[in-house]
């Protein structure tokens, strides 16, 4: 029974949990309930991935209405993997949230905070699992609206402007997307992705289809913060409450990248993309984004903002894989999507632990903390190494496939940019390390009596840190699933 409704339950459970959480009394109840829900969803996401890991596709008809009329949830290896990472990050973030939220968000807003969190969680899972492009828009709005609310809860007043900025940009993105969907519907008369994929090839030459494609691409480029449409991201990540930053940085942009992957390869097909300048455009924007954003990251004075700019650069790596359009390229995209969630999650959590202790994320306030918070410091070092792509960490596997994909197509410029990006990452990661370790502790009131962060913050952080190391050696899950996914995304390739 549960087995067959698994795909729906994953989305429905947090959705149903949200109103319940909202009416729970403030205190620890909302937190405890959301945490349990996230764990249950995580378990189901694991089960779901096992079900599709052999390469089969689950098609779930919502309400028993057969597609293409009813809404279909369509799960294959690609989105099962993304759902797993979303659920996994939520399951680790929520235990971390208890302490962090108590410190950063006023007590009377706790139940609403967790309700919004559950809604955001629902939205991201829904986007991932649905096979209906309008349904995708609905979930996109659920996740976006709740994340605007979540970001605006940040302690500093700038959180409001950051949320507002994101609201404007996000709404433009969503509007572009829905315009594109509308045009597609007008031309094909269907909203089901599989159905669309069948009807689109004969309309490839049609202007309206090309326009629709452009709208969808720009809309989602905004959501995933592809350079130069990334302007909302640094502010949002910097001023949002720590937990929100951790969750969004590790999942929201990843889900958007997945949608790109799905739209480009499943709905339109790469043959269509190759006729348009899209793939070249992606590559150019990614190259510019990787280099410029990495440089920006080096010059930041705030640790959260530094990591935010690094995120924009990292999104470039993921999109390059799509731009290359090869089996290796998609493997790189999916693997990096997964790995980057782990590394950014770990890093934002570790920075969050520092913020929890000293109340500031400015790098100049970090002086000498490395010795007082050795475990947090070690987490930042390992997470940073993974970000750089040092062998033995998950980041290395990503870099390995990306460079291999670029070499395969003799795209030497991309190879150079990826390597250069890694070197820039060394610089900004080491900026943090040096600030934490080599600067003598200042006698300011903030850092004088700092101790190691509480275990409730350290354990989730270290879970992700260890995952970074584990997936640096065992790639069965990441690379294995990506290779299964490629069979479905790029039919006809033998690898």
């Amino acid at each position, binding site marked *: 029974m549960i087995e067959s409704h698994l795909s729906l339950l994953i989305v429905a459970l947090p959705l149903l949990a949200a109103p319940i959480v909202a009416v729970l009394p403030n205190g620890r109840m909302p937190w405890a309930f959301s945490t349990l829900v996230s764990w249950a969803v995580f378990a189901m996401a694991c089960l779901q991935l096992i079900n599709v890991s052999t390469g089969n596709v689950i098609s779930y008809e919502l309400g028993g209405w057969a597609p293409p009329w009813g809404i279909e949830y369509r799960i294959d290896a690609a989105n099962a993997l993304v759902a797993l990472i979303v659920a996994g990050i939520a399951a680790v973030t929520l235990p971390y949230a208890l302490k962090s939220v108590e410190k950063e968000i006023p007590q009377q807003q706790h139940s609403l905070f967790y309700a919004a969190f559950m809604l955001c969680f629902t939205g991201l899972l829904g986007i991932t699992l649905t096979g209906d492009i309008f349904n995708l828009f609905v979930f996109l709005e659920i996740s976006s609206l709740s994340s605007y609310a979540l970001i605006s809860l940040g302690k500093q007043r700038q959180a409001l402007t950051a949320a507002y900025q994101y609201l404007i940009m996000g709404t433009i993105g969503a509007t572009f997307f829905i315009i594109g969907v509308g045009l597609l519907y007008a031309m094909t008369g269907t909203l089901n992705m599989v159905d669309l994929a069948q009807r689109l090839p004969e309309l490839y030459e049609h202007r309206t289809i090309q326009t629709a494609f452009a709208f969808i691409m720009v809309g989602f480029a905004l959501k995933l913060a592809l350079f130069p449409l990334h302007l909302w991201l640094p502010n949002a990540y910097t001023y949002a409450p720590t937990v929100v930053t951790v969750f969004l940085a590790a999942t929201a942009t990843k889900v958007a990248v997945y949608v790109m992957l799905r739209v480009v390869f499943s709905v339109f097909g790469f043959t269509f993309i190759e006729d348009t300048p899209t793939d070249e455009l992606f590559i150019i924007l990614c190259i510019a984004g990787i280099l410029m954003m990495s440089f920006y990251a080096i010059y930041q004075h705030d640790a959260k903002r530094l990591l935010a700019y690094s995120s924009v650069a990292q999104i470039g790596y993921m999109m390059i894989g799509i731009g290359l359009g090869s089996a290796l390229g998609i493997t790189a995209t999916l693997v990096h999507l997964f790995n980057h969630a782990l590394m950014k999650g770990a890093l934002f959590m570790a920075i969050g632990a520092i913020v929890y202790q000293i109340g500031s994320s400015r790098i100049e306030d970090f002086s000498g903390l490395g010795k007082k918070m050795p475990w947090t410091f070690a987490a930042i070092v390992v997470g940073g190494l993974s970000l*750089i792509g040092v062998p*033995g960490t998950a980041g290395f596997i990503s870099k390995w496939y990306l460079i*291999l994909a670029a070499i395969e197509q003799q795209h030497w410029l991309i190879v150079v940019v990826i390597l250069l990006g890694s*070197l820039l990452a*060394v610089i900004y990661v080491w900026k943090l390390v040096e600030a934490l370790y080599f600067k003598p502790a200042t006698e300011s009131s903030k850092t004088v009596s700092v101790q190691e962060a509480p275990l409730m913050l350290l354990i989730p952080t270290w879970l992700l840190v260890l995952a970074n190391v584990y997936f640096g*050696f*065992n*790639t069965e899950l990441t690379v294995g699933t990506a290779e299964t996914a490629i069979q479905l995304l790029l039919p006809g390739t033998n690898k």
Partner: protein
Amino acid sequence: MNLANQQLILLAIFLPLIASIFIAFSDKKPNLREGISLIASLSLLATVLSLLPSVLAGEQPSIVLLEIVPGLPITFELEPLGMLFACVAALLWPVNTLYSIGYMRGNKEKHQTRFYVCFAIALSSTMGIAMAGNLLTLFICYEILTLSTYPLVTHKGNEDAKKAGRVYLGILLSTSIGFFLLAILWTWHLTGTLDFKAGGILSGKVAGPELIILLFLFMYGIGKAAMMPIHRWLPAAMVAPTPVSALLHAVAVVKAGVFSVVKIVVYIFGLDTLKLSAGADWILWLAGFTIITASIIALQQDNLKRRLAYSTISQLSYVILAVFILAPLSTVGAALHIAAHAFGKITLFFAAGSIYTAAHKTNISQLNGIGYRMPWTMSAFTVGAISMIGLPPTAGFLSKWYMLMGAFQEQQMVAVLIIIASTLLNAAYFIPIIYAAWFKQPAQDDNAAHGEAPWAIVMALMITASLTLLLFVFPDIPLQLAMSLIGGNP
């Protein structure tokens, strides 16, 4: 005890790693901590030596640990050159631990637990490099070695250490990620394998300018070999405590660099493939340039450790030069030089640290007449210096002999000239130190009353000095290993 060779390989790699955990937990008990270090280093030596007979008998034990990327496992395989390198490192670790105890206590250094932990991890990755069965494994261990030695280089934690750490990590990481990784990926793309195979996996797969570019990516990707102009990290690393300079920046780290170079030339490119390419000649010239230039710079250094560092840069390029002569005999010379230079240079660094501990002197101009106050130290120093110059009865003579034989065999007169010229330069920067120490009068204002360094230091440097002499008298085992590297007979 009769463990299978496979388990012994794993033991050699993981033993120091496990030891590092125990060391970390004995933070507050210095005696226990250093006891564990000593026991770990001696057991590692026993492990490595027990692998020796089967390698000498021609076996190449190997073990696959796990598969990282489909078709590309982490695997360890012990071949003769790796055996030689592992023996040298494992032999010198206990000696160096003994020395460290004397030095770190004598100088009342802080953070000693971290020091011993990082040291053990560095040794573990050195074993990994020595026994790596493919390029990926080598690369992983290579990077771990870089990162685990960073806290050792920046041990003092002050502004100087931070700057030196930046240079160290900056050069080693950027060359390895920028060039070495690219070269590995390119090789994987071209051949579909990264295994070390006799005759080279790239033979017939790449030619012309592509081969030259790939060769340069490898040579400059291995920053640890310190070929100019990417040598600056080595003098920078001298801010570290002397035991670090001694074992890591005269033996483990730098030898890991040239060891990788030799392995890549012999097993990835293959001597015959390189003979057809002009690129090999260019590297030969660059190595020759490095030998001469580094020697000239060494000549101008007054700080003893810096002079030794530049001498190391020059000596490392001997190995590169020797292997790029592309004659079997000079390859033997290259392999022998890895061992010979290790013993000689560690002795010299030990002596430098000994002088610093006992007399707090760092500059050569302060060393007048010190030989009579510290006779053991300066005798050992003299032996080490003679080995650097390459005179009998020391190990340095042996390796230079094979290099020259190879160079004559291949009619590489340029290489011969470089070796001769640099021998003169080596003499020019070592003999004045020896002369000053034994024959000059101490300066008038030098009235510091000091004797020898602590016994642990003296004992360590006497052991390494004896090893330098012994290697000349009994060269059989290293020679046999080096010979089997090129297929048995020259």
